[in-house]
């Protein structure tokens, strides 16, 4: 970021954003009433490939307009289309945008812009940032994460996907899982083992892999909800030029950590919308006993607290701080919100959650109830988050390794 940029005050900024939004978008229709409109509460998107392309294209059109008008990539350098604003201005912008009728970002957009683009900004050489960032930030080229592997699980540093040097680049072989948006991405950021002899965290390198490269195969994974929201990605003899390596050889672990820290931060507001919807469900019951009133009030308080936590993170960012492991607090709060939402809703709906009776806002909750457990696993399990907090924030001793 260039130091000379003049930063507008948050109030100026929000006013300007609102002004621009009013020009290009209609206000959100707030007249939708309880009992009509969409009652979708799925926590993971579940689309056919055709639907995924359609929704992605619609979002992309909006994101391009935003970028081209100077309201995207706010935290990035002007050289790549940004405005060098402090990180939390993105949140200020989003607060304004929430009042307008614009496409809901699907998951691959924050993955590309909030998780991977900053890692490229941090780790890329100038040629790479110039080549990739504008396209990523404009959503011209979406990028998915190729991190998880079946065997490695929570122990990300145990990745087995190998990258072996060949002629002018690398040859990748392996199998990645739990990749969102693989079908619509141009790139995948792959974590690979380049030195099998090095200590576990040391032999890892990160690569940007073209998803249309020969040897890349994407297959959807069917999850607990019955839907297919993730993919497995096979890498079989995939050639990657060395110019698509991100960060130095052997530094892939640290690249990954940059992405994961951003992911934790991004997960802080998970579940709030559905929790409020559940409180609304309670509010629309003909009567509630004291236990259910208390449970609904408790969930409403959770959403307030979760938002307040987000505001504190934003305050840290705006004070120039870099929220680190503390973001794990937000993720744990979010997964608990998701669980408590499930439990309140199940108690309120009773048989309406067991068999579809066609009533509005009932059966749709099965998507939440069956999907919610996934977020206690995805993006670092709850157990991993607790270990991060206990070791990196509280400073408790590490586990001995056998």
């Amino acid at each position, binding site marked *: 970021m260039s130091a000379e940029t003049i930063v507008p005050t948050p109030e100026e900024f929000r006013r300007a954003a609102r002004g621009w939004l009013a020009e290009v978008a209609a206000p959100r229709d707030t007249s939708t009433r309880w009992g009509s409109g969409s009652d979708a509460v799925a926590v993971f998107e579940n689309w056919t490939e055709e639907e995924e392309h359609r929704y992605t294209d619609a979002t992309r059109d909006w994101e391009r307009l935003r970028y081209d008008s100077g309201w995207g990539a706010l935290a990035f350098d002007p050289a790549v289309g940004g405005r060098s604003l402090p990180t939390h201005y993105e949140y200020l912008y989003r607060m304004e945008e929430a009042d307008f009728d614009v496409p809901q970002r699907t998951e691959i957009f924050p993955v590309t812009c909030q998780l991977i683009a900053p890692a490229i900004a941090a780790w890329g050489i100038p040629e790479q940032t110039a080549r990739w960032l504008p396209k990523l930030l404009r959503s011209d080229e979406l990028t998915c994460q190729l991190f*998880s592997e*079946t065997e490695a*699980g*929570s*122990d990300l540093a*145990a990745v087995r996907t190998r990258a072996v040097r060949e002629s002018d680049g690398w040859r990748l072989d392996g199998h990645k*899982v*739990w990749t969102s948006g693989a079908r619509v991405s141009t790139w995948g950021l792959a974590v690979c083992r380049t030195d099998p002899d090095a200590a576990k965290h040391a032999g890892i390198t990160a690569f940007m892999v073209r998803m249309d490269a020969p040897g890349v195969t994407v297959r959807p*994974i*069917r*999850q*607990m909800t*019955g839907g297919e929201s993730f993919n497995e990605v096979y890498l079989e003899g995939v050639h990657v030029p060395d110019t698509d390596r991100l960060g130095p050889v052997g530094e892939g672990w640290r690249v990954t950590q940059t992405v994961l820290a951003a992911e934790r931060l991004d997960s802080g507001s998970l579940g709030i919308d559905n929790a409020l919807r559940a409180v609304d469900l309670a509010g629309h019951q003909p009567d509630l*006993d*004291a*236990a*259910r009133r208390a449970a609904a009030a408790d969930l409403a308080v959770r959403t307030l607290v979760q938002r307040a936590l987000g505001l504190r993170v934003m305050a840290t960012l705006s004070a120039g701080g870099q929220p680190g492991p503390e973001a794990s607090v937000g993720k744990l709060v979010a997964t608990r919100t998701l669980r408590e939402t499930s439990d309140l809703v*199940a*108690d309120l*709906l*009773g*048989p*309406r*959650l*067991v*068999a*579809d009776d066609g009533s509005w806002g009932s*059966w749709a909750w*099965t998507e939440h*109830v*069956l999907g919610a*457990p*996934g977020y*206690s*696993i*995805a993006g670092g*399990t*709850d*157990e991993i988050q*607790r270990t991060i907090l206990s070791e990196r924030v509280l400073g408790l001793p590490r*586990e001995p*390794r*056998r």
Partner: protein
Amino acid sequence: MARDVLSGSAGQGWAELAALGLVGLLIPEEAGGSGGDARDLAVVMEAAGATLSDAPLLSGAFAVAVLAGLPDAADLLPGIADGSLRATLALPQHSSVTLEGDRVTGSAGPVLDPDADLVLLVATDTAGTPVLVCCAGDADGITRTGLTVLDPTRPLVRLDLTDVPARILAREADLDPALAIGSIALAAESVGITDHALRETVAYVTGRQQFGRPIGSFQAVKHRLADLLVELEAARSAVALAAACAVGAPELLPVTAAAAQLTAGNAAALAVKEYVQLHGGIGFTWEHPAHRYVRRVRASAGLFGSAHEIRLQIADLLGLPGGNSHVR
């Protein structure tokens, strides 16, 4: 034995289960049944829960528990015991049926056995008296609607009845003891689910290596599984107590049966949560059986009462002040 038989339940025919004496467990031997009691039922249902049998054993248990106590229904028992007459009970809390003369009209919400030959119903007669009746599952005037369900291993139907011929079995019948037997059956099923989930999870975390160690050697994992074991043992004890009361202390049956349903339901809820979570990504896939157990546990709570609702029932039974606030 029951466990072995039920393991193959996907293809298990009802006649086969009946031949093994698993359907007519509570039917006296002279009527062709096994002459067993609630303790035997608990053994079978625990095995059914562990394998998540899709045979409608719970449905049958409810029906048999209702009929076994009715002198007027004695002629039905041999057919039920030998499997030729598959019976189900439309749970009263999900039904709204009226009786005029010997005809019933109304609807019965989620019914546990889509293919039953005989449906037991509580219908309200013109005087407002609840009457236990039965009608043929394929009678004229019955429309069966298969429902989209959370738990595909327990298919459900809605029955809409229009002027359906019914046989009157009992006026002002007290179904509470039979429903309590059903609660024990459900609780035992939950014990089986909990046992399965704990066993599978222990096996998985023992084999699965992360960070250079089996994940089952990490203390947080160990302690959570120990807590689950505590819940399992509590649930087993509660079921044993209720089954013993069904046999020897009927005055304690309602409260102990509800206690078993509550305790075992809570154990199963914790069990399936840990089942998914401690299996990590694989536990969240469709291919892994964990989600089927999640679905069964959620569906049972939805159909037979959430923990909160069962607690309120128990508070009523204990005569705690402030009652009658738990109607949904």
